[in-house]
């Protein structure tokens, strides 16, 4: 097997010394973590390694020697000295990595490799350069470990290149030591330049504990008020389950309690989720405040309130025109005149009721709208859900028409289907849930056929009313659905993860990619290992927040089937208990 040496790019210009790292025997690869410079005392190097080993639970060792010759010819004495070091730090295999002639030529020898004596003598060596910073900070998203974020806890479970990532992450203590610190052991490795605005970060860390405690206390008070018995009386839970504002407020409350819970996030995935929730909340409130400022600056609320009643009147008038058109001969169709008149008058009476209701409401509209506008400071999503609820309330007459039409149509379709079975001498057996043949009497058949004929001739009239009102209803549902889509988008967008992917692509790693650096015959092959960032679609898939779920998950075919059979469609979620 080829011996692989993972070498950090930041150590390529380091002075000669010892290679410190971990040997992974299953893959025959050596992960170099740092270079120890001359002069050093061997016992102190061993002590340092033992300390890091204890902290990170990773087996570190001195893997070999590193020789960097800046001069043209390598010194003879140094080479012999480096060979001699192998006697002090025993390791199998003992690596001798050398960079010569101004840094252009690399050579690597592995003494004591391959382990088995029978194998052909000089085994090929591969030098793989990696960026220590990227590998340390990145979070590997392999498809296998995605559903189980705790898989990284057990060291033997990681295999392949994940072992390299794991080794670098576990020996973080090694990277803490400062380059300029005059300690007993001088190391060369990647060094963090400190966090940007670290004073602010520290202050925020100090402040976050008490703030979280206080806010979580307030939130628990709020949820205790919400849970009191007054709100459990009959009509309130029913109304709350139908209003999307309540759903959205509950969703946001859950987010807040999750965010300010005093427990620490256990895994990086959960931490990422917390930050995502925080940024989603922040975006929501910022958009809401912007909306509020815009509404106030333009005095939109007054204009809206003034415009609302004329618009409602206009809609009602259009509906009246539509009904009168339907009561005549719509599109040249000849309808059943008596049924047509009855239905038309019934719906006209409804519109009359509706208009009087709107006029009764008109003095209070401006106040209501103003409070809706104020709710935008709770977040844009709350304001949007309120808007959706207001649309639902303002188009209540359309909903009523739709329900009447759908019920009539449903009745008619069911009657027709059962009479059609009678027509063929069959019937529906309830006990066996199937269609059985049945012999009817003559008068039964006569009455059934008569009813069937009547229903067939009345069907076009009712179907037309149903069609027109269903189209109106679908229009309203489409508007509400698009509002809910927007709300879901704001609710579930993982803003922080997407930003991280945009600005620091190496933080979210899907894997690695290799690039072949130049290769000369007789010298080890040199590869550059880079982080392969996660694609945007996978970032969104992995980190998207659970949405509120007030949308029905209806497929198109199911929707069409429901429409054809006259079953009611709702913009909100049906009770799940019905299916169970």
């Amino acid at each position, binding site marked *: *097997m080829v011996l692989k040496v993972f070498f950090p790019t930041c150590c390529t210009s380091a002075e000669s010394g010892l290679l410190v790292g971990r040997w992974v025997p299953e*893959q025959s690869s050596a992960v170099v973590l740092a270079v120890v410079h001359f002069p050093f005392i061997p016992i102190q190097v061993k002590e340092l390694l033992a300390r890091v080993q204890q902290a990170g639970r990773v087996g570190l060792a001195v893997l070999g020697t590193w020789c960097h010759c800046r001069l043209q010819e390598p010194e003879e004495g140094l080479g012999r000295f480096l060979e001699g070091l192998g006697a002090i730090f025993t390791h199998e295999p003992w690596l001798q990595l050398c960079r010569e002639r101004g840094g252009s030529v690399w050579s690597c020898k592995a003494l004591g490799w391959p382990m088995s004596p*029978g194998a052909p003598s000089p085994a090929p060596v591969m030098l793989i350069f990696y960026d220590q910073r990227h590998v340390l900070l990145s979070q590997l998203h392999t498809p296998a470990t995605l559903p189980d974020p705790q898989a990284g806890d057990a060291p033997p479970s990681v295999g392949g290149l994940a072992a390299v990532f794991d080794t670098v992450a576990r020996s973080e203590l090694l990277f803490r030591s400062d380059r300029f610190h005059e300690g007993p052991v001088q190391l060369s490795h990647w060094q963090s330049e400190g966090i940007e605005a670290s004073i602010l970060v520290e202050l925020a860390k100090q402040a976050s504990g008490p703030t979280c405690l206080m806010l979580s206390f307030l939130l628990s008070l709020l949820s205790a008020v919400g849970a009191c018995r007054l709100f459990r009386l009959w009509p309130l839970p029913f109304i709350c389950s139908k209003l999307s504002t309540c759903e959205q407020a509950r969703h946001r409350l859950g987010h807040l309690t999750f965010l300010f819970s005093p427990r620490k996030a256990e895994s990086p995935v959960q931490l990422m989720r917390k930050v995502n929730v925080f940024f989603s909340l922040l975006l929501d409130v910022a958009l809401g405040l912007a909306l509020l400022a815009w509404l106030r600056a333009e005095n939109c609320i007054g204009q809206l309130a003034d415009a609302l009643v004329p618009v409602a009147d206009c809609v009602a008038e259009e509906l009246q025109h539509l009904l009168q058109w339907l009561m005549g001969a719509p599109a040249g169709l000849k309808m059943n005149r008596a049924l047509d008149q009855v239905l038309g008058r019934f719906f006209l009476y409804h519109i009359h009721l509706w208009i009087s209701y709107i006029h009764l409401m008109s003095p209070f509209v401006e106040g209501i709208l103003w409070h809706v506008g104020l709710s935008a400071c709770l977040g844009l999503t709350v304001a949007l859900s309120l808007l959706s609820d207001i649309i639902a309330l303002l188009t209540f007459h359309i909903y009523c028409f739709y329900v009447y039409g759908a019920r009539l149509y449903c009745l008619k379709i069911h009657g027709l289907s059962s009479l059609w079975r009678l027509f063929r001498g069959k019937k529906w057996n309830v006990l066996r849930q199937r269609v059985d043949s049945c012999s009817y009497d003559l008068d039964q058949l006569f009455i059934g056929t008569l009813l069937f004929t009547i229903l067939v001739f009345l069907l076009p009239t009712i179907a037309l009313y149903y069609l027109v009102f269903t189209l109106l209803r679908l229009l309203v549902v489409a508007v509400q659905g698009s509002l809910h889509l927007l709300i879901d988008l704001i609710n579930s967008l993982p803003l922080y993860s997407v930003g991280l992917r945009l600005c620091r692509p190496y933080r979210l790693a899907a894997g690695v990619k290799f690039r072949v650096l130049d290769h000369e015959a007789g010298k080890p092959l040199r590869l550059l290992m880079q982080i392969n960032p996660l694609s945007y679609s996978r970032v969104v898939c992995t980190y998207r927040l659970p949405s509120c779920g007030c949308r029905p998950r209806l497929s198109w075919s199911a929707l069409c089937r429901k429409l054809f059979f006259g079953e009611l469609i709702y913009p909100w979620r049906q009770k799940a208990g019905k299916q169970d």
Partner: protein
Amino acid sequence: MEDERVFSDICGGRLALQRRHYSPSCREFCLSCPRLSLRSLTAVTCSVWLAAYALFTLFENSVILSAAIFITLLGLLGYLHFVKIDQETLLIIDSLGIQLTSSYASGKESTTFIEMGKVKDIIINEAIYMQKVIYYLCILLKDPLEPHGISQVVPVFQNAKPRLDCLIEVYRSCQEILAHRKATSTSP
């Protein structure tokens, strides 16, 4: 060591196969498709603009013309960035893995790296594509739960679709490396 040979894809188009042998344990195969030709680009642009101009004379609305320009520009950008693949590369490194890279015409590269521990074998497979039978190279991945099972089949050179003679060339080289791996992993 590097050489280049010309093959043809399943439709008879020209494909250039570059082979680079970096070392006995590392080989790279690079299949380049022909670049976007000026003729087809001109034809598409002209047809879109002529259609827009016809609509403009019909409706006398200049929005149509600006919309046509935007559609052409965005379409071209999207085509170069997401659809048109110029080069597909297969890099096989002994005891490390197989890397598949496809570079788009805009310079975007999408890379997948498969670790050698997961690779079961590389084979040439037959498939029915439209009305003809084609051959394609694919990598079989091991099932982690079941040692003899196959969890996934990853097709290689999906965009270029080279003919069998080119595939055999690549296949032989890959098999040499895989055989070398098997020989060394079983001996100790």
